[in-house]
């Protein structure tokens, strides 16, 4: 990481008609940093992403990528960034190699160097075996890797990932993220959006976003420290009664999908007392370090999965 900014946002607002999608975003991402924008659906992630990636103009404020204005110096920005979109952006009917080769031409490479670059990426990303295959016939994980290869064709300094591993299985996701780690290790900057906290976890810094505003920014550990102490999760036969009892006894329980959450400086010390005196039978009790989910819950009173936008099918295994 260096102290040169890779991405800067100053007072960004975006309105779509009556919808105020971004309500004043200020943000700096340093070069060499892996930065995650974490928030529920409809929080404004994709809008902020689109502005930084030169696809949308802000209604107010300005954004810079590597020092270049994303509106006035759009093509300078484009030359230096690679983008993996939420939706597929490949021509399914063409072979994998041709997709990469053509993208090289769009980035101004000669046919010869575009071909060399395509082969290079196919090898490093483990796609050599499927290079000649029609892109639409690849597996989900392979397709995502080709998307990544497409984004890397022009040797970008900054890589944008918008919900890049949505719908991938665990193996494919691990494989994908190890490639991202390698990009960062080689000095690249990564800006990613996600609504899964485990995808944000490996980031150097995370910004929590909700309702078009940044709630907080910091390293995963910083954010968890904000919660203070640990989290006690309690599931009982009658959570409503248990919550009432807890409130009467000076605790601050918060409802979550899995039960009642108590944030305590020393949760392990509190647990036996609560269990012994609770008037309803406890079914399950656990103590854990605060997760990013807990941070979000603390700041908004909602879980990441609740969202503010259209519901998406819930993926298995994303909540600890």
């Amino acid at each position: 990481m260096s102290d040169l900014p890779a991405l800067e946002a100053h007072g960004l607002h975006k309105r779509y008609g009556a919808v105020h999608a971004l309500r004043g975003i200020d943000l700096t991402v340093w070069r060499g940093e892996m930065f995650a924008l974490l928030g529920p659906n409809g929080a404004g992630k994709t809008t902020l992403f689109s502005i930084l990636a030169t696809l949308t103009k802000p209604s107010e404020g300005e954004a810079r990528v590597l020092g270049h204005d994303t509106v006035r110096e759009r093509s300078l920005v484009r030359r230096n960034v690679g983008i993996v979109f939420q939706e597929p952006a490949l021509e399914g009917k063409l072979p994998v190699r041709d997709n990469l080769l053509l993208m090289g031409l769009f980035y101004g490479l000669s046919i010869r160097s575009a071909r060399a670059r395509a082969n290079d990426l196919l090898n490093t990303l483990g796609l050599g075996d499927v290079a000649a295959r029609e892109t639409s016939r690849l597996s989900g994980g392979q397709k995502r890797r080709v998307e990544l290869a497409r984004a890397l064709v022009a040797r970008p300094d900054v890589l944008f990932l918008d919900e890049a591993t949505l719908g991938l299985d665990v193996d494919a996701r691990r494989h994908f993220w190890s490639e991202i780690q390698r990009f960062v290790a080689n000095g690249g900057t990564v800006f990613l959006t996600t609504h899964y906290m485990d995808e944000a976890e490996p980031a150097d810094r995370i910004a929590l976003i909700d309702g078009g505003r940044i709630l907080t920014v910091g390293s995963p550990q910083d954010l968890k420290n904000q919660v203070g102490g640990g989290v006690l999760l309690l599931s009982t036969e009658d959570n409503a009664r248990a919550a009432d009892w807890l409130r009467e006894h000076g605790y601050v329980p918060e409802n979550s999908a899995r039960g009642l959450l108590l944030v305590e400086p020393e949760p392990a010390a509190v647990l036996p007392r609560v269990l012994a005196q609770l008037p309803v039978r406890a079914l399950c009790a656990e103590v854990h370090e605060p997760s990013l989910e807990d941070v979000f819950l603390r700041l908004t009173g909602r879980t990441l999965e609740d969202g503010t936008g259209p519901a998406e099918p819930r993926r298995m295994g994303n909540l600890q």
Partner: protein
Amino acid sequence: MKGLLAVVILDLKRLWVDRIRLISSLIQPLLYLFVLGSGLGASSTLGRTGYLHYIYPGVLALSLLFSAVFAAMLIVFDRQVGFLKAILVAPVSRAAIALGKVVSGAIQALVPATILLALLPLLHLSLSVATFFQLLATMILASLTFSALGVATAARFRSTTVFPIIGNAVLLPMFFLSGALFPLQNAPMWLRWLAHADPVAYAADLMRGAILDRYVYPPWLSLTMLIGFIVILTWMATRVFAAGEDA
């Protein structure tokens, strides 16, 4: 220039993997030529052969028109599947993408039309080398006109459901009004007036002139009109693409 070339190479690669589209685009012109042409020709005052010769250039125009506009309509498809985004974030100017689309649409339209030229000897039409090149030059001009029309239109749409509407409500009327199937001289006044606004009419007339040496409009007028259409429609196409920054 490199961006323009990249668009053209991309589209031609796709045309090659999608050869079925090329073959099936020949069906409609062949139907018009041999079914409609033979059927109507039998009761036409021009006689069967005379009528086939009359509509042959019109059918070339039909082939160019539909192939060019539908090649452009693939932009809508690309936008729908998300592929267009990858191109729009590349460091290529929107004008270069629009121009590339116009050129590639014209090339995609010329391929099936050139295949239809193989029918010339079958129809007992023999052209001198000079008139053959005159015909070819006219075809290139026509294909650019129709492609620019297609790109200027397609870049505005977000959904592929408009395809059949464009085909039936825009392209077929343009084809029917053009005098491709019947001589405009004998047509009612209103129809002749409408034909003046129809680029297909000038294109078909120039091609018929090259083959049969018979013109409805003076060639200079047709040439001026086609070039005018190309300039205006291409300009519109670049404007639509440039305006689409919030894609």
